[in-house]
């Protein structure tokens, strides 16, 4: 290293070794500025309450209970793969067929279209008295019925009966599986 470089280095070292003397009011002045800056940025109202930090006592029993709860939730989640898989499955085309030679109109209403008579009823097409419509239905169990001529509810004769005919009208049950067994 050249001499001029060494001299410069020694000067820097000497300066760094020199003790720094701070004004006695330095700490106080710094803290005043810090508190002011924090007060300006601090959230208020509900956000302040949510964000406020407070210490609580840690108890082993509570920690164990929390851990057990997390394990239980995770375990139950792992034991329900079918639900999880099905949640990601989109609607599946289902064909509804009713033989009603004398009918003027046939529609399908059910849980899958919120029993919508006007806006979402599935209107079947007539093929010499064989009415049919194909509609996307999400996986799950659904209750449905055919609405003939806009006034008479008819159960699907080829499907299981729905036992919940609380309103005095027949309906059928449809199970759409999202996964193959």
């Amino acid at each position, binding site marked *: 290293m050249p001499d001029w470089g060494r001299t410069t280095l020694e000067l820097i070292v000497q300066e760094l070794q020199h003790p720094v003397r701070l004004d006695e009011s330095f700490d106080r002045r710094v803290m005043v500025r810090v508190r002011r800056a924090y007060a300006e940025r601090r959230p208020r109202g509900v956000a302040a309450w949510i964000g406020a930090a407070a210490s609580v006592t840690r108890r082993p029993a509570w920690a164990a209970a929390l851990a057990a709860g997390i394990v239980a939730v995770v375990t139950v989640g792992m034991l329900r793969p079918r639900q999880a898989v*099905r949640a990601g499955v989109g609607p599946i085309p289902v064909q509804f067929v009713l033989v009603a030679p004398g009918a003027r109109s046939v529609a399908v209403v059910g849980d899958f279209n919120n*029993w919508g008579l006007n806006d979402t009823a599935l209107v079947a097409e007539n093929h010499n008295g064989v009415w049919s419509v194909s509609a996307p239905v999400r996986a799950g*169990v659904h209750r449905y019925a055919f609405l003939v001529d806009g006034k008479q509810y008819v159960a699907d004769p080829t499907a*299981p*009966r729905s*036992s*919940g005919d609380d309103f005095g009208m027949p309906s059928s*049950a449809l*199970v759409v599986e999202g996964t193959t067994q």
Partner: protein
Amino acid sequence: MRTRTARSFLAVLLAGSAFGTAEAQDPRIGARLDAPTRKAISALVDSARAQGIPVEPLMEKVYQGLAMGADGPRIIVAVRSLTTELGSAHRALGAVATTDEIKAAASAMHAGVPAVELGKMKKQSGLRRSLTLPFTVLADIVSRGVPVQTAANAIRSLVGAGAKDKDISDFQRNVSVDIEKGAPPADAAETRAKGAAPAAPAKPERIEKSEQE
């Protein structure tokens, strides 16, 4: 540990419950139900949600009642009855049951199948076998006149033998055709259950030691 996390969690819970209440007040329902009925339905839905009972089937029941021209009191009775059945089904099947299974089990209960019977089936079937279709078929054949115990035994034997959903659908179809042709419902179910159960895999014949020697 800080309470910041706990407070944030509480805030999320409160927001979620507020959203849930709003969800119960569906505008399509609100416009078509009178105020007392709307209030009663909302209370039932909130109560069900608080108990962990799926509320979607309750809303579907309201839609069905409205579509079928039922009056308010009748809709309330139907929703209250369904709430009770869903709650019983939920307790009988346990936490591992899916919403569809609970809904199908409630339908079976409505047909007259005891909750304890459904709980036994769920316990027997294991966790990975969905009982949505078996419960739906159970409700169907009971509503066609098959005695509850006969129907439950038939479905349990099918599920226990490893029958697929298609096998159980075929069983339902055959039983309903037999009954429509005049067969006694109990006989139809018992006979068809024997034919529908898949054959158990044949065990390899044991070779006696003496024969080997």
